[in-house]
């Protein structure tokens, strides 16, 4: 099945039950502002639509159907109760600008979530508005700039990031008008403290850091790092992408960070949706609280002494960096995170990081036993770890990409590959806490089988995946160069083959 719905379209086919009757009179709109030619949309029956999109769904790997050991992405089970309860009609049908009275239920949930996230972060105040991790980062860095600006210290225009940081960190700093300076990592996976000490100065706006780091190890000297950055007048930003490793055990605020974003679609189990929507709430220390993005839910009492929830406006937070979304962010996603936290509580959160870490360390141990090379064998894995396939690349001429594509044929989604770029031919593997021991064992067996193949029949890896009967494949390895050279981004009649 390679046809698009446009190929199935036939003029005159229509779903009358979805189409309002044409108007008796022409619209009261000047002719020159009206559309002359109807848009090219498919003309297909409801059954054709349902069948087409159902079949498309079946071409996907997903957490519901496959093991997804995708490092840095925390592809854990997404509880159905969160999905169902966040989709109750009272929540779905409310207009964002409807009266405050009509939103007490949803705002009570959001206020509880603010409180819970503040506690988990060890921070003073929370805004739920950012709609993804990258927007949370933007909010955090914009707040750091606002803080320096308010103190007449606006010459701080350099953001420090470790060389292994997520790409969103430097991209965010650039969007906030800052230049980026990378700090090297030492051989044990820690940030090089001497290099950090040399890098800071009156130009330092701050440091963006993920902890545990993107190398799958805990940054042990974070206390000292915070001292160095703070002593130089900079602030610390915590990229919460890896919070699943330490949630309920260590708090960014206690580590010395001034701002943090959460990825609720990682740590708090909201679904990834094939790329989103997620949410990236931010929590901040006392000194950044005045700059939080709007709106924030506040809790007061009504005239009868009952809780009353409402949105803070510019008048409540005059120094806010402003709005980031039309209304108040991805509320439906935030509700899912709220429900998840109400289901697991603080003990459950500690269990999450405990078993995520257990699964990662077990998988790392088994792969070491099987003869694979891990990037930091002397360190404890956190919730993820790195395998380097450099020995296999040198011995058999196969790449991390080859391994990843062949894993798909074994029914496993590939780990994250070639990130962080510091480690050659790397696989960043994150099993999450919701996978069974049996699944991890099967994954190890697949890795062993693929390496055996690499030894005996490397060509099999180079050409993977083949058109195999696993869900999702159906095509062989796709030509990325061809796609970029002459972009074909929309369907056109002339392609009708």
């Amino acid at each position, binding site marked *: 099945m390679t046809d698009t719905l446009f190929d199935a379209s036939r003029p005159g086919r229509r779903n009358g039950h979805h189409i309002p009757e044409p108007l008796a009179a022409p619209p009261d709109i000047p002719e020159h502002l009206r559309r002359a030619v109807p*848009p090219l*949309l498919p003309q297909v029956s409801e059954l054709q639509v349902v069948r087409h999109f159902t*079949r498309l769904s079946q071409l996907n790997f997903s957490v519901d159907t496959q093991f997804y050991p995708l490092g840095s992405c925390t592809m854990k089970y997404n509880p159905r109760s969160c999905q169902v309860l966040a989709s109750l009609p009272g929540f779905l049908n409310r207009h964002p600008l409807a009266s405050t009275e009509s939103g007490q239920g949803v705002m009570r949930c959001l206020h509880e979530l603010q409180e819970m996230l503040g506690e988990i972060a060890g921070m003073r105040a929370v805004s739920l508005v950012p709609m993804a991790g990258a927007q949370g980062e*933007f909010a955090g860095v914009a707040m750091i700039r606002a803080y320096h600006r308010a103190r007449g210290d606006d010459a701080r225009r350099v953001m420090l990031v470790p060389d292994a940081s997520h790409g969103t960190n430097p991209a965010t700093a650039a969007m906030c008008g800052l230049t980026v300076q990378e700090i090297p990592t030492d051989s044990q996976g820690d940030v090089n403290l001497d290099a950090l000490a040399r890098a800071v100065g009156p130009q330092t706006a701050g440091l963006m850091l993920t902890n545990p780091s993107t190398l799958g190890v805990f940054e*042990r000297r974070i206390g000292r790092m915070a001292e160095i950055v703070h002593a130089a007048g900079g602030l610390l930003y915590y990229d919460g992408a890896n919070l699943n490793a330490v949630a309920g*055990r260590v708090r960014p605020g206690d580590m010395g960070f001034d701002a943090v974003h959460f990825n609720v679609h990682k740590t708090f189990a909201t679904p990834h949706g094939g790329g989103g929507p997620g949410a990236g709430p931010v929590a901040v220390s006392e000194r950044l609280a005045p700059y939080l993005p709007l709106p924030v839910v506040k809790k007061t009492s009504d005239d009868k002494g009952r809780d009353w929830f409402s949105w803070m406006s510019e008048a409540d937070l005059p120094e806010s960096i402003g709005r980031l979304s039309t209304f108040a962010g991805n*509320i439906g996603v935030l509700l899912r995170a709220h429900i998840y936290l109400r289901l697991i509580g603080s003990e459950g959160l500690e269990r999450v990081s405990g078993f995520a870490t257990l699964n990662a360390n077990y998988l790392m141990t088994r792969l070491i036993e099987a003869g694979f090379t891990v990037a930091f064998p002397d360190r404890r894995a956190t919730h993820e770890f790195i395998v380097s396939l450099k020995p296999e690349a040198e011995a058999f001429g196969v790449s991390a990409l080859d391994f990843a594509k062949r894993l798909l044929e074994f029914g496993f989604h590939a780990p994250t590959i070639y990130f962080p770029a510091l480690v050659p031919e790397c696989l960043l593997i994150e099993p999450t806490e919701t996978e069974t021991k049996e699944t991890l064992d099967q994954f190890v067996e697949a890795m062993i089988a693929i390496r055996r193949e690499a030894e005996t029949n490397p060509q099999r890896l180079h050409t993977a995946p083949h058109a195999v009967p696993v869900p999702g494949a159906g095509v062989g390895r*796709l030509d990325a160069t061809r796609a970029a050279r002459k972009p074909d981004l929309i369907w056109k009649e002339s392609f009708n083959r």
Partner: protein
Amino acid sequence: MPFIPHTPTDIEQMLTGIGVPEMETLFEEIPQALRSPTLDLPPALSEMAVSRLMRERADGDANGLCFIGAGAYEHHIPAAVWEIASRGEFLTAYTPYQAEASQGTLRLLYEFQTMMAALTAMDAGNASLYDGASGLGEAVLMAARASGNPEGKILIPASVHPHYRSVVRTMTRDQDLEVVEIPFDPVTGRVQSKALNRFQGQKVAALVIPQPNFFGILEEVDTLTDWAKAEGAIVVALVNPLSLGLLKPPGEWGTHGGADIACGDGQPLGIPLSSGGPYFGFLCCKQPLLRQMPGRIVGRTEDPQGRTGYILTLQAREQHIRRAKATSNICTNQGLMTVAASIHLSLLGPEGVANTAATCHAKTRTLMEKLTAIPGVTRLFNGPFFHETALKLPKPAAPVLTQLARLGIQGGYPLGEGYPNLDKGLLVCATETKTDADLDFYADTLAWVLNVKEG
């Protein structure tokens, strides 16, 4: 243990395998001084207890009869839309970086890009941004890059949604871009051409043209586009995608090849109101600006056997490749919302989109006629409108809306919130979901509320 499958035997075997006595040992690299005490969170509840709690809260959030628009619109969503979009294979899939494991999402996005490009009459579209306001922010940044005139002014009419303007300010503040607001004509509600002409020859980098504008009013898009093109500026069209079943698409505005960028909020295409999100932003552009586009883009390609497949492409624009030199920091977008929008548009087809847009327009016109028949209620502006219109009440709108809400009507948006001078202004919207009886009920109730207070 909720969502954790380990048996006591599993745990024992795994710890033995690792060679540690207990799970806590795995955390030994974390300095003791940093370990937090047990967190003070609400106690864990069973699924049954959480269900009850959430049902109680959701049941209390009654919307009533909704006549509010102002950036989010109540439309009928065919049952098949979310029935299919909620399938676990869409819901729980990751970003389609591994193309061969993500052909469903990728082909869907290719179709989505095609539909959005068709609606806007542009050459290409991306795979979504967060929402309409942040999408406009990205479009403005893109226009500034593409203009080759980074010092140039970016003109945004004051008739753009106040929250959108706030987001643009947030997103441009630290880049030292000069964003200038253009006032609207108090009679027509349109961009004031006199004010615009003051920027003639002043190195304008981009002009944002809202259609319809925040007041529901239709701008003279051809004239504005031609003006901007003559100034060498990039034209950013801010549009409601559903309106494009009825209104001239941005790609055809003016006499010089149309707008350069079209963006907006996709919520009217099958996305529930949900107190404000998740919605999705869309961004389409003409071919020359393609490589300045932010966000993910899907392209069609082939495998070695010549079979068609789809893949994320032009990734050299993106943060995971270009880091500080990327066109945006965006990573996660609003993927699942594009699944719903694609299904929605496929069910409606060209005729469905056109007739729905026309019906919304007609309902709002009828509502306007009924409401302005109430003594003291008049139109605030006289320009033509799409499916929203601004009225002037004989008294401030906010308290009137509070009373209407108590009577089961969410009556509109009080313009005084975004425009302090317009405190008697009320922005109302009637979509295809409203019956004639609904419109009469609103008119009767408003007449009663205005009358009671006057008496």
